[in-house]
Structures are given as C-alpha cells and as structure tokens.
C-alpha cells in the first residue's frame, strides 16, 4: 500500500537527521498519545534547533510518492524543520478540533513556522474548517507566507471558491509573485478571472508598465469570448500584446 503523507514525512526527516532519530521518535510518540499541548509547542520550537533548516532532500521517486499520497502535493522547497513541524501536527492526538489547534499555533508563530503551517494545508484533516485561517494567510504582507499557500499547494485548487481563487491570482500579480507554480492555474480558469486579468493588464499598460506573460495562461481559454476578444485584439493592434503571448 502507498505510504501516507505522515509516513513519507517521517521517513524523509529521519533519513536526513539520523542523529536526532531518537528525539523525533520519542517526541512524536508522546504527542500522539494526547500529552499536554505544551509538548507539541516544545517540539515545534526545538525543530529548527535540533534538526537545522536545510532543504529536504527529495528524489523524483519521493516526489512521485508525495503526489500519490495527495494529488498535487509537491514538497520540493520544504525545509527539514518545516517538514518535522507538519509531521508533528499530523501526529498529535486531537484534544480539540484541528482548526482550533491550527489557529492557536498560527497566532504565535514566527515566520518559518507560519510558512510550514500553511505548506501543510493539503495534508490536514477537516480541510474545509481551515477556511478562515487560510484567508488570514492570504492577507499576509509577508510574500513567503502568501506563497506557502499559493505555490506548489493543491489546497486552493481543491477548496477555494471562485472569488477567493481569483483574488489569490490577482494578489500574486500585485506582490510581484509568479503564477506558474500555482497548482490548478489552467484547470480553474474562469470567465470572471479572465475579465479581471484583462482589466488589470489595461490598467498596467495605461500606466506605461508591462505585464508578465504568465498572466495570459488563465485568459487563453476565453480568447474568443466576445468582450475579451475585442480588448485583446485592440491591444495587439496597439502593440501592447502579441499573438504569441496568447498562443
């Protein structure tokens, strides 16, 4: 049987931090038995101190196993302490609803912790109960926190309604982030988003500023929508846009 996400994380973290294997195993065993919340806090706090912050070393096989465990989950770019923190959350016995614990941890998190918490989104139980917490992360001005949700993370594709999805794409453009690492960028294209993006492009052109070619990925399926086609054709005639960008 395929390994679960928790089994994968445990295997990867222990392989990379063999000298701390005993501490990891003991801590996880304790927090899996419903020990006081403080034990979880201590593990989360000590994770970077004991394990370091190196990138998780993953092979193509590992990435394929991740995708098999949770379609769209891509842990490349995760750090070893971040992986251990998500593992702890998946392991901890629930004394209260998961979303309550997530909220409590997010309130007091440092930057690296917040990134780890949000990167783990696709793996948590009761994902729909985290909607408010995800909104708080998307509103963050810390780009890396926003990207922990938006990039290489299938949670938005799987759980966002159209309004939130569209605004995530738009915010990515506003904070100079990139669109191509967004999981489901083509799949979740919609006419309303295409309209918003064309408006955004015109606003930028009016200000004499360029737009990224990535912007056209979710617009392409609506290339021939009458209202959009007219504006795009005009932009091509005015030399602001090329047919190649829309190809």
């Amino acid at each position: 049987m395929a390994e679960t996400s928790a089994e994968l994380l445990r295997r990867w973290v222990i392989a990379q931090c063999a000298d701390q294997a005993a501490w990891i195993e003991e801590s996880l065993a304790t927090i899996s038995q419903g020990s006081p919340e403080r034990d979880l806090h201590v593990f989360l706090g000590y994770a970077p101190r004991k394990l370091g912050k190196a990138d998780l070393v993953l092979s193509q096989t590992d990435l394929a196993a991740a995708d098999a465990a949770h379609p769209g989950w891509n842990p490349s770019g995760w750090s070893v302490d971040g992986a251990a923190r998500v593992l702890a959350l998946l392991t901890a016995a629930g004394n209260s609803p998961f979303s309550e614990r997530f909220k409590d941890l997010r309130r007091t998190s440092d930057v690296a912790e917040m990134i780890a918490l949000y990167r783990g989104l696709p793996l948590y139980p009761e994902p729909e109960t985290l909607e408010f917490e995800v909104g708080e992360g998307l509103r963050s001005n810390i780009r890396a926190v926003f990207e922990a949700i938006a990039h290489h993370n299938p949670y938005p594709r799987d759980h966002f309604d159209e309004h939130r999805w569209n605004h995530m794409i738009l915010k990515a453009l506003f904070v100079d982030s990139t669109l191509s690492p967004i999981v489901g960028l083509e799949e979740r294209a919609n006419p309303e988003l295409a309209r918003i993006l064309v408006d955004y492009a015109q606003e930028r052109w009016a200000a004499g500023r360029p737009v990224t070619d990535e912007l056209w990925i979710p617009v392409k399926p609506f290339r021939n929508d009458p209202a959009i086609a007219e504006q795009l054709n005009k932009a091509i005639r005015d030399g602001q846009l090329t047919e190649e960008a829309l190809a």
Partner: protein
Amino acid sequence: MFIDPHAHMISRTTDDYEAMAAAGVVAMIEPAFWVGQPRTYVGTYVDYLSTIVGWERFRASQFGIRHYCTVGLNSKEANNEELAEGVMEWLPRFALKEGVVAIGEIGYDEQTPLEDKYFRLQLALAKELHLPVMVHTPHRDKKRGTSRSMDVCEEMGVDPSMVIIDHNNEETVAETLQRGYWAGFSIYPSTKMGNARMVELLKQYGSERIIVDSACDWGISDCLGVAKTAKLALESGISQETVHRVCYQNALDAYGQSGQMNEQDWLNPAAIDQRTLFEGNSILRGGREPRIEAPGERRAGQMLIE
C-alpha cells in the same frame, strides 16, 4: 559591520531601516518593551510578541538586516498583576521561537514588590531554557536598582556571563564589569549616555564585555547611535579592534549563547531563508563592507549624540 543589540524597530520608519543598513548595521535585536502606553489586554501583548518574532523580522529583512528579538514582561507592565499573570502564561511559547536570543528586557522600574516577583519568575524561565537575559536598569534610583538587579540574578542562580545589564552609565559600569556581567550602554540623546561620554568610557575601560546599542524607540533617539559612536571612537584614536568588539563582536558573543544568532545568518544565510526572507535582496550576498552614505550620510551629518 555593526550590530545594534537594542533597537525598538516596531516604533521606527523605513527611512530608519535604510539609514541603518547604509551605515553598516547587519543585525539588530528588538527587545520586548513598553510601547509608550500600558496594554490593557493580554491579547494585545500576545499580538505584540507575535509581531516582533514575525512581521518585524520580515520587515527588517527587506532592508537586508537580520532581526532578532528578546521576549519578556517589562518592569512597568509587571505592575498590572492581571496582565502580568496572563503574559507569564504565554511567554514560554514565545521563548523558543526562531531568532529569540534572550528573555528581556526585564528588571526594575520603580522597584515595587510586583516588579520583583515577575523579574524573578522570568529569571527562572531563562535559566530553565538556557537563554541569556537582557536587564533593563531603572532610570530612577539607578545605582541601587542596578546593584539590586545583579543581586537578584545571583540569588536566582543565573550565571553573570548569561546576563547583559543594559543602560549603564559612569556610575554603574565599574560594578557591572567587576561582578562579571556584560555591560550594555544605550547611546541616547540627553538622558542616558551620549556618544562622546561613551568614547571616554572606552578609553577608561577598554572593550571587554562592553556593548554599545542605540535603544532607539518611540522617543527622541537616534537609530544610528552605534554607527556614530564607532565613527567618533575611531576618530578619537580608539583602536579598530576595540570598536569592532563593542559595536559587533561582544553583542554576538553574549546573545549568541542562545544558539539563535550566528554570523552565518547574515554572511551566508540558509537556502530556505534566502528564498523566503531575503529573496531579491542582493545586499547580503557575500557579505559587505560597512559604509556610510545617503541616507546614512545625510543623517550622520550631526555625528554627536549628546
């Protein structure tokens, strides 16, 4: 390169960050403090601590400066027992956050029984977690308050090598050094310590265990206090070695005892930090030479802090 080991950046502007970076500040420590008026809810204190371990750290990184902090219940707010009890419950959770280099700034303000109670409880916490302590010494009845702070550290079994006694002056420095503590000096216009006086102290006491900081906050203060003191000291014939120790190395040695502050953090940041905190920031790559130029140059024009 300079370290400013006492700077309340939450009260400062982006212009200050730019000036500090331009003047050669590569790392700073933001001690938890009193924000100018009392907090009346535990929740606002929790959000404040959350801000200094998170958002302010990110803000500093945008200017190429490594941000660390200390967490604690300051002496003024220790007098609100309901608030103090609440904050004490949350402190252990913040003490292990990334970049927390000490418990502080703690100590006495009016030297009340409640201040004494929470000072001792926080010293016990620091000892339990093997964290250094940043002690704020009182403005009033300073000499006695400073001696008493050290007495209590010793009573609580905290090693003087783990304690930075801050806001020293000519009256307190001899005892602080003699008893084995680190001696911080806040270069503060008019009230605490001007940089010309600081230079005289360096001539007298040398560089061992002496640390210079700006303590810049919401009041009249100068975020370039460390850089200007270094410049004045060099011009006054103090050795490069001494200036390096008191404006950089000693702070690193003292707070580095937390295991949370390492020169590699700014000279060669971990890949994850480069991607998340310092992306697109070229200032740090390969280290850099200290330099004073605009807006640092403009602001360093009045070099003396008196």
